[in-house]
């Protein structure tokens, strides 16, 4: 059977138009990613933390995770090793040596930083992550396919995966107590802290507060608010008496993690122009090379 040139153009035209029609739909498809001016944050003053780990306890209770009784958290032997959040503990406190001899050791609470430009929200193949108005980055169980690209993308290595579950494994991470804050409460860890290490408030006010504290106590803090600019800024901000890199904070630049990949991605798919142009170009080559062969034979 032979294909006439007219057939070729006709089919190409119809199918090409169909493909082009998909373009605007795709450009709009993206998960909720709001950067509200009034988004909330938490300022963590690590110089106040005594390592009582009440926050770990409160977090488990608030998220219905199994927990040992609160007294067991007085055990300081867990600090012998550096711990990371995992599916059964969304926040953990680690202990670091104090550079000033004789001073108490430094304790640092870690959990999701709730980035202003979250890598996980950009990366997730099905848009299961979203950035909410109040600053929380949360995960939608109903969409997740368990690919773990969020874990690859996260600059803080925060999302964790339930490797031991064969069915419905979850991605687990701090959700900024999204349910509690929705009910008007404050995050569980902030509420329980006996030393008032954490302050929950509007992020822009916390940034000011952090700089004020550094100004008022220049000997107490190093002059840096971690999270103010890192990867475009995070909801959780940290003050410390020691260089952050020595406290296991990753060294990150000011550019948002998703920046480069998203712009490249959007350039390749700008209204489907590049793929359709490539299609047209290849179609043209096919047509011409076939014509060349035919006239050669005639």
């Amino acid at each position: 059977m032979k294909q006439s040139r007219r057939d070729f153009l006709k089919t190409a035209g119809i199918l090409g138009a169909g493909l082009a029609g998909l373009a605007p739909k795709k450009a709009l498809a993206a998960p909720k990613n709001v950067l509200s001016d009034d988004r909330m944050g938490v300022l963590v003053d690590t110089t106040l933390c005594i390592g009582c780990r009440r926050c770990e306890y409160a977090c488990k209770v608030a998220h219905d995770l199994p927990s040992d009784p609160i007294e067991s958290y007085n055990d300081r032997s867990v600090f012998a090793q550096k711990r990371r959040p995992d599916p059964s503990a969304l926040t953990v406190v680690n202990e670091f040596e104090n550079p000033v001899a004789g001073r108490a050791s430094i304790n640092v609470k870690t959990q999701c930083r709730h980035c202003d430009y979250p890598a996980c929200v950009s990366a997730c193949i099905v848009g299961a992550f979203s950035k909410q108005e109040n600053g929380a980055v949360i995960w939608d169980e109903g969409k997740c396919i368990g690919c773990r690209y969020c874990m690859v993308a996260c600059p803080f290595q925060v999302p964790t995966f339930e490797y031991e579950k064969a069915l419905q494994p979850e991605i687990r991470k701090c959700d900024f107590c999204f349910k509690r804050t929705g009910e008007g409460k404050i995050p569980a860890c902030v509420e329980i802290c006996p030393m008032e290490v954490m302050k929950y408030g509007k992020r822009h006010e916390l940034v000011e507060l952090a700089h004020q504290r550094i100004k008022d106590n220049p000997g107490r803090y190093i002059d840096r608010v971690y999270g103010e600019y890192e990867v475009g800024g995070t909801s959780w901000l940290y003050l410390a008496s020691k260089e952050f890199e020595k406290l296991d904070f990753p060294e990150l630049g000011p550019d948002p993690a998703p920046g480069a990949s998203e712009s490249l991605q959007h350039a390749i798919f700008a209204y489907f122009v590049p793929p359709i142009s490539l299609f047209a170009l290849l179609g043209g080559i096919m047509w011409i090379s076939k014509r060349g062969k035919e006239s050669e034979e005639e």
Partner: protein
Amino acid sequence: MNLAIKAEPLKFKFFTPGVIVLSLLVLNGLVFAFFRFVLGIGAVTNLSQEYPWGIWIGIDVAAGVALAAGGFTTAALGHIFHREEYHLITRPALLTAMLGYTFVALGVVMDLGRYYNIWHVMIFWNGNSVLFEVGICVMAYLSVLYIEFLPLVTERFMGRVNLPGLFARFNKGIDRFLRFLDGGLNRAMFFFIILGVVLSCLHQSSLGTLMMIAGPKIHPLWQTPIAPLLFLLSAISVGFPMVIMESMLASRSFGLKPEMHVLSKLARFIGPLLAVYLAFKIGDMVIRETFVYLTDLNLQTTMFLIEVVVGFVIPLRIFLDRKALKSPFWIFLASVLVVFGVLLNRFNNFVIAYKPPVEAAAYFPSIGEISITVGFIALEVLLYRLFVRVFPIIGQPDLSHRPRTKFAIRGTQEIED
């Protein structure tokens, strides 16, 4: 019957010692796959909270996609640039691509925590996600590959539908359906061939964009803004070497003469393609001054050097040698090296280059991960062997008659029978 290539189902003894070894490897992989689905990913892999991706992504998926590039590169050469002398190799390449991508999909299913939700990708779109683009393109391309393969099915069974017993009454209907399909495919095939090449260019390059979002977690030797270009160029470079390697292995296995008259000509393209790739790879290294990392000797720099020197520089030297192009030994060796180089490149990009921001025990694939990966490869080889027996895939050229169809993917124009 005018035939450019008379591709026929091959006849040979299926069970050989090699096939038995492959079958055992498949069984071994199946055992671990069973445990993966019953006990979870943690039970069979060494993946951790710090290393979420291992060899299933680095080799089964990333390298699998790259090594299936023979499908779109030969389709472009044979059908779009209309070089009929290469039609002989388009069918084996198409079969490899089809099987290759099928196993990429199976590899993804192994790795997904909620594999049964894979259809979510088609519903919940995230246009910002590189993985979404890769996923959609791979799904679409896999469908295109099945469509491109259909003409071989119709060619094989048109006029030969002969179901036994009770089912015999459907013979006529199925045959009519096949003829209808064949006619439609003939008209539309050009569209799918071009679409296949476009989709391939898209996702082959996007695979390179995938690790960009991991930022400083990826070693600077691999973390580059031109990663998508490097991925596309290396995929195009590995297409023909893969076809050559397979063709020569198949010829040997099935007791045919290697198709040197085509393969030597095909090999001429590889040198320049490798040169372009290396120019970008090394140019990128010079411009970003990442060569400074080569002075510290560690796993990552060692793997980088092996990848570039063994996988690209040495085969480039061989392919640029006119005499070597005529020698089955040299083009086979050089092709194997390129295949190795691209496989290692993907593995390096996704596994070796990845370093979590916090200290963690290093990742090394578990017996289970290796068993499943090896099992998949063994099963792919077995299926290839089976397919060339059933379908007209491998053949001898007959250049005295040239078909005048534009899209002679079927190789034949009319079926006698």
